[in-house]
């Protein structure tokens, strides 16, 4: 399982990388962590003519927590997030999801931006980005543009990148202190590709849910934002007893609206069932946590 030939570049400046990617167009690929790209190259699922290794571009290795947002550059590894006290404390949904990414050796190399770009239906990061209302910063030879998370994910293993473009940064808004969150997933073994998962945030005020956000992963086409379920919860009282009905309605919307695929790991009906189970677990867990901290 050796890759086909490619031309390899390891520029030290972003502008150079974008120039090469621009020339290569559809035949170019970005190599960051390599944890998604290299298996595809080894299996010869992909044979790009040009591989641009961005690991020498120092400015892309930026992880910065500001008053309003967390900036995650293209070279930030999953493990870097977990080693950041800021991230673990103030972006708990992101931390909780990242802990479930594969295994340590993968987390040490794999990048958050890479995971987002790849948009595997079972991946954790796309759903977290959507749930948190994050932003994707894209760069190409012609300049930069920014997309809302949901604009970026366009379908199974697809994204809104034009040929020659790459993700250079993600931004995650800082959650309010009144936001409780939970990320749950179900996989056959720890670290496996998830069969389904759910990311939920509930912004509460005096027992009422001001905002609810719920995204389901594993359904096949990329992160599924459960709008109808969120609507059922927004503005609703979610006390210990009242939440049961609210959650039940939300979950019913989830299972009605998801459109999961059949594959060798699970049938669509099982995935649909899991979506409901995990959505409920995520909502219940989020509600049970004190504001802003992982319980």
């Amino acid at each position, binding site marked *: 399982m050796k890759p086909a030939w490619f031309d390899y570049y390891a520029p030290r400046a972003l502008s150079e990388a974008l120039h090469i990617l621009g020339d290569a167009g559809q035949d170019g690929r970005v190599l960051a962590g390599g944890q998604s790209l290299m298996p595809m190259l080894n299996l010869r699922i992909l044979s790009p003519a040009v591989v641009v290794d961005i690991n020498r571009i120092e400015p892309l290795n930026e992880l910065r927590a500001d008053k309003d947002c967390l900036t995650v550059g293209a070279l930030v590894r999953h493990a870097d997030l977990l080693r950041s006290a800021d991230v673990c404390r103030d972006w708990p949904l992101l931390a909780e999801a990242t802990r479930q990414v594969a295994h*340590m050796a993968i987390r040490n190399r794999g990048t958050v931006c890479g995971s987002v770009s790849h948009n595997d239906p079972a991946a954790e990061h796309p759903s977290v980005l959507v749930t948190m209302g994050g932003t994707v910063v894209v760069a190409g030879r012609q300049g930069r543009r920014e997309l809302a998370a949901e604009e970026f994910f366009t379908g199974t293993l697809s994204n809104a990148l034009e040929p020659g473009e790459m993700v250079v940064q993600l931004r995650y808004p800082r959650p309010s202190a009144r936001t409780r969150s939970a990320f749950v997933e179900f996989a056959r073994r720890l670290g496996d590709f998830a069969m389904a998962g759910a990311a939920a945030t509930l912004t509460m005020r005096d027992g009422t849910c001001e905002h609810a956000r719920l995204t389901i992963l594993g359904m096949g086409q990329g992160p599924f934002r459960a709008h109808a379920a969120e609507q059922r919860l927004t503005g609703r009282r979610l006390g210990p007893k009242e939440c049961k009905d609210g959650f039940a309605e939300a979950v019913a919307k989830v299972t009605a609206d998801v459109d999961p695929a059949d594959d060798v790991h699970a049938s669509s009906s099982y995935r649909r069932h899991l979506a409901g189970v995990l959505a409920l677990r995520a909502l219940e867990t989020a509600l049970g946590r004190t504001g802003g901290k992982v319980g």
Partner: protein
Amino acid sequence: MAREQRICVTVNGKVYERTVPVRLSLADFLREHLHLTGTHLGCEHGVCGACTISLNGRSARSCLTLAVQADGANVITIEGLRADDGTRHPLQQIFLENFALQCGYCTPGMLITAIELLADNPNPTEREVREALSGNICRCSGYQAIIDAVLIAARQAGVAHANAQVR
């Protein structure tokens, strides 16, 4: 030509300068060019863990890393676990004494991963050991002897010191 590149890699404390095909994996570089065959290939897609080495102080799948990416990097393999005088790393000794290997094919990855665990978490619970090693497949042992060996190592003085030397 963008298909070959000269790289300079430190492996087990020794500096190597070589010209390599750009598509060559770090695993194949270690095995074929440096004749360090202790790192094993079990799947070449990052799942089995047999190829795990230490790259700049952290565990990494050498089958998913290109050799050219290791230019300027510091790599430790199972062959680098011995002390300068040739004595085994304490974890290797404990593995041997506790029958924590059978066919030996997963062992290089297990050792590197366990050493990283103990460096990050010197006193892990059994659950934590199992979690940390869950990315390393063993088909022979059912894991028990390996888990026990790591727990024994955690309790032994001198292991942490040896781990620090490896990093």
